[in-house]
């Protein structure tokens, strides 16, 4: 019998159930998008699959009412927690006018929603790191209590902007939490060809901030790390670098075929550690989740995903000429 870890972290049963639901929702939305892509209904998908635990665990440790997030393209789990709806995510998948992220201008995974303090993101990786640092600088200047939270892949931690951004945050002791979702691949490039250090978190020392590596398949471990980091930040003790070790359960994107560079065995092994399965098992062990409840969650989520899909599929595209709008303030 397992000790109840979430209680000791100050999490109620309904909260961890909520986390679990959100992870399942992200997974099923993502799976649906692949089906839609293969059916030729949407041109592109880039997945959160395998990283939902890290994303949801981290987001739950933040203050959803005041904190700012700069998610990267896999972070469906983060934006769901921060208030983006399944319909809104599907509208983005279908590139429809009503998509709050970009009005159908950007690919799915390019998140942004001001009312939920989700910074608008682009495709070039790692540019969001200095942005989150800038938001944290504003928090310090205005003496506010919020923090900024930014994510990226481990491959992206080799970009200059990672170095420049974290150094800036370290020098000015800013309330920014950087989480690297290390899924061990940058498209086809394996970890050992990306980095020579043992773990990405070792880089924190060079920026005068604490760095920790956690098991990204365990939402509670990630939750705890982010919670501690957030306290540090709001107490004026500056930034933290967190590395969450995860697995990428799909190809890099719907345009990628990972069979050319990745062993099937490896993927199979990863699926056995699937964060959703592990977290489900944990919740069952502590009697928070039952087979019955699990089943009804699945059904509830399926309905949500169906509704989101139908809504988005039937929504209109933006007018052609609307492409001319919003280059500058009008």
């Amino acid at each position, binding site marked *: 019998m397992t000790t109840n870890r979430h209680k000791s972290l100050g999490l109620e049963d309904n909260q961890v159930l909520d986390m679990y639901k959100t992870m399942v929702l992200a997974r099923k939305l993502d799976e649906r998008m692949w089906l839609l892509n293969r059916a030729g209904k949407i041109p592109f998908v880039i997945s959160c699959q395998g990283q939902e635990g890290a994303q949801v665990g981290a987001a739950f440790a933040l203050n959803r009412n005041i904190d700012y997030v700069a998610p990267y393209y896999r972070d469906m789990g983060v934006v769901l927690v921060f208030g983006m709806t399944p319909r809104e995510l599907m509208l983005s998948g279908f590139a429809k006018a009503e998509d709050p992220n970009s009005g159908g201008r950007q690919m799915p995974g390019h998140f942004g929603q001001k009312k939920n303090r989700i910074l608008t993101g682009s495709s*070039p990786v790692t540019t969001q790191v200095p942005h989150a640092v800038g938001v944290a600088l504003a928090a310090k200047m205005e003496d506010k209590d919020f923090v900024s939270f930014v994510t990226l892949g481990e491959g992206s931690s080799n970009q200059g902007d990672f170095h420049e951004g974290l150094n800036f945050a370290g020098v000015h002791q800013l309330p920014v939490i950087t989480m690297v979702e290390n899924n061990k691949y940058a498209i086809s490039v394996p970890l050992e060809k990306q980095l020579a250090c043992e773990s990405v978190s070792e880089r924190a020392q060079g920026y005068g901030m604490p760095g920790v590596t956690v098991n990204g398949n365990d939402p509670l471990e990630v939750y705890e790390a982010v919670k501690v980091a957030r306290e540090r930040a709001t107490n004026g003790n500056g930034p933290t670098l967190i590395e969450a070790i995860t697995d990428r359960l799909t190809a890099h994107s719907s345009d*990628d075929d990972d069979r050319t560079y990745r062993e099937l065995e490896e993927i199979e092994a990863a699926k056995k550690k699937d964060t959703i399965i592990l977290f489900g098992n944990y919740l069952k062990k502590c009697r928070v989740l039952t087979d019955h409840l699990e089943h009804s969650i699945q059904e509830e989520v399926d309905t949500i995903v169906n509704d989101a899909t139908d809504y988005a599929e039937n929504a209109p595209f*933006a007018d052609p000429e609307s*492409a001319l709008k919003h280059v500058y303030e009008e």
Partner: protein
Amino acid sequence: MAVISYIEAVTAALREEMQRDESVFILGEDVGKKGGVFRATDGLYEEFGEQRVLDTPLAESAIAGVGIGAAMYGMRPVAEMQFADFIMPAVNQIISEAAKIRYRSNNDWNCPITIRAPYGGGINGALYHSQSVEAIFANQPGLKIVMPSTPYDVKGLLKAAIRDNDPVLFFEHKRAYRLLKEEVPDGHYVIPIGKADVKRNGTDVTVITYGLCVHFALQAAEKLEQEGIDTHILDLRTVYPLDQQAIVEATEKTGKVLLVTEDNKEGSIISEVSAIIAEHCLFELDAPVRRLAGPDVPSMPYAPTMEKYFMVDPDKVERAIRDLAEF
């Protein structure tokens, strides 16, 4: 002679140059085991090994900068930027370093690097996988910028770029990769960098363009022929520095010039082409120098409605040529 695609011409040029010259090597993201996200380096990792087909960390400034260092030493690196849109982090290395190494060292050092990147839209690439970025660099003496329009040109120009003793940016239209096929000689041949090429002879209207738009122009010209409009088409091939003489000749041929690019209009390659014409051919002109280009918005949206609205296509070119003919 075999019929090969635009991207197969890229691979063929790379293979032949690597076989010919030990100092040629490839570096970039996913170029090795995966053979490139578009498979431009397909099979080269197997043939030449990981030492010469290097999967690099995800860091464009290092891809360019390490390549530049190796080039100064005497190697002939061919660096791949996965998408032209992602060349931005490497701008400092390209403009401050590669472009100026020969000049600043008074000819003591030089930098024979080729930087390849897929550019262009019409493939649901959205804002950051559709851009034309040549205008950012087409004001930097020391650089050469090549943008081929056919498989034949790709092979001959890429081989010339790799053999060139100065830095060359080589932009390949990603939509052309599998769309365009033609007969290409198997053996060695190079096409001189810096020279434009007449892709069609005509007497009524001159179209000056480059890249995929050359094909839009050719398609439009075919249609217009039936209406008795005879179009002259100049393919710039090298967009920086420009082939002034060829531009002047093409202008004088008809006295009516349409300039076409899929890039945004203001500050694009065709702005300079127009300036050259206004400087040298004013009295040969029978009509204003018209420009057909993408609208001045950041880049092509993802939604098909807006993407189509943004993209130049054969119909838009056809209408613009007809307008000029009727002027």
